[in-house]
C-alpha cells in the first residue's frame, strides 16, 4: 500500500469537500424512509436533502422523527440525539427505550444508514470502529446498524490524509460487519458494491477525475459497466 502514498500532490483535480460528499449522499435518500445517520459527514446529510424529501430520523438513544437542533443553551438534556446533541421538540416525534431502539435496528426496520468508514473492502466488509493508533475504539450502534439496516451507505474520504487507499481488497482493521456495504460515496467517487460477486462498480467521478485517476488511489479493482458520470 505504501506505493500509493503522497499521491495527493499529484491529484488531477480538487477533491470534493465534506459538504459535497454529504450532499451527494443526501440526494439518494427517499422521502418517508427511516434513516439513521452516523456522526461526521453522515450527520451533515440532513442539511442537504433535496426539496420535498422528509425523512424519519432514528437515533440509537431512543428517538424517532427528530429534526433540527435547539439553539445553544436552549437544549433539553432529556431530549438528546445519539451524538449527544439536543434536537428541538417537534410534532410527530416518539421516545422509546434502548430495547425498542435496537429492535428497530436488528429487526431490519431501518431503511438506510449512512456511516463513516476507515476501510471498505470489495466484498462490502466495513471497518470503522477501532482507532488503530490508540488500540481501543467505540462500537456504539455501528455493528448493529451495519449488520441489519436494509441499506448501508459509507460516506468517507477516498484515502487517508497521507494518501493510503481506504477502499481495499481486504480490510486490515478490525471489522464492524462483513459483506454489508451497498454503496461508497467519497471525495472523488461513487462506487456501488456488488456484494454477491465481491465487485466494486465505479458509477461516478468527481469533476476532472478519470477512471484511471480513481483506480490509482484504490487498492481494490474497480469496474465500469456504463458511462462514468460526473458527481454534481
Amino acid at each position, binding site marked *: 500500500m505504501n506505493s500509493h502514498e503522497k499521491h495527493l500532490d499529484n491529484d488531477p483535480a480538487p477533491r470534493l469537500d465534506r459538504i459535497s460528499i454529504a450532499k451527494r449522499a443526501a440526494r439518494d435518500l427517499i422521502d418517508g424512509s427511516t434513516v439513521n445517520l452516523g456522526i461526521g459527514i453522515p450527520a451533515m446529510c440532513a442539511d442537504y436533502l433535496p426539496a420535498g424529501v422528509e425523512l424519519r430520523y432514528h437515533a440509537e438513544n431512543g428517538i424517532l422523527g427528530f429534526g433540527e437542533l435547539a439553539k445553544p443553551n436552549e437544549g433539553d438534556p432529556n431530549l*438528546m440525539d445519539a451524538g449527544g446533541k439536543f434536537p428541538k421538540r417537534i410534532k410527530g416525534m416518539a*421516545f422509546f427505550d434502548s430495547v425498542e431502539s*435496537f429492535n428497530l435496528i*436488528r429487526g431490519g426496520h431501518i431503511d438506510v444508514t449512512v456511516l463513516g468508514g476507515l476501510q471498505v473492502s470489495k466484498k462490502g*466488509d466495513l471497518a470503522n470502529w477501532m482507532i488503530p493508533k490508540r488500540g481501543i475504539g467505540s*462500537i456504539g*450502534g455501528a455493528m448493529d446498524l451495519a*449488520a441489519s439496516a436494509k441499506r448501508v451507505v459509507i460516506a468517507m474520504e477516498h484515502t487517508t490524509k497521507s494518501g493510503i487507499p481506504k477502499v481495499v481488497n481486504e480490510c486490515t482493521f478490525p471489522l464492524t460487519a462483513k459483506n454489508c456495504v451497498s454503496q461508497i460515496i467519497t471525495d472523488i467517487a461513487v462506487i456501488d458494491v456488488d456484494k454477491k460477486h465481491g465487485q466494486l462498480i465505479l458509477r461516478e467521478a468527481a469533476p476532472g477525475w478519470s477512471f484511471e485517476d480513481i483506480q490509482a488511489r484504490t487498492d481494490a479493482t474497480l469496474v465500469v459497466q456504463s458511462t462514468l458520470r460526473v458527481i454534481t
Partner: protein
Amino acid sequence: MVGGFGGAGGQPTRLMLALRDLGVNNLTIIGNVAGISKTTGYGWPEHLEPIDQGIFFESGQATKIICSFPVPGTTNPLSDIERAWQEGKADVEIVPQGTLIERIRSAGAGIPAFYTPTGVGTPVALGKEHRIFNGQEYIMETALSADYALIRAEKADTRGNLQYIGTSRAFNPAMATAAQITIAEVDQIVEPGGIDPERVGTLSTYVDRIVERIPGDPLP
C-alpha cells in the same frame, strides 16, 4: 449497572456521586456510552461541568467497565477510563450497543442466551458459538446481570412505579429488571395515583429503593 445512554439526561448522577463518596472498591461498571462527557461535553448543557462514569476510574474504585462507547474519537484527550486502561488499572470490554441492551434485557426476562447477527465476522465473535438460521449466520450472546442497578427516572410513586421523560429512558427500564437491587433516582416521589397507569415506564416490582432529589437540584 449505571443507567441512561451517556450524557446528563437519564443518568443517575446523584447516585453515582454517592457511590463514589461511599468509597467501595473493585467495582465493575456496566454502562453504554462511557466516560466521554467530561472530555467532550457529550450530552451535557454547555453551562455545566459534565460528570460521567469516569469518576469511578479517576478514584480507582472501578477495575472494569462493560460498555459500547468508551472512546470519542481520534483527536480527543484521554478520558479517565482510557487512561486507566492504558495504565493497566482497568479492563474495558466493548460490546455492540444492541447486544449490550439485549444481554441486559435477557437477564431480566429469564433468557440465558440468544443469537444475534451483530458482530459476526468481527472481533466480537471470537470464541462464541456460531449457528446458521434460515441461511444467515448468528453468534450466541449470554445474559448480563448485576448486583446493583442505579437508574434515573422523572417520577416515582411510593410503590416504586416509575415514569420517564423524553429520551431519558435508554438503558434504564431494562437495567431495572436485571439487578439484584435496583435503586431509582427521581425528581419527585408522589402518592399512588400520582403517575397515570398508562404512563408507568418501569413496574414497581423491579424497584427496591427510591431516592428523591433535593428540589431545585442544578444537575439535570
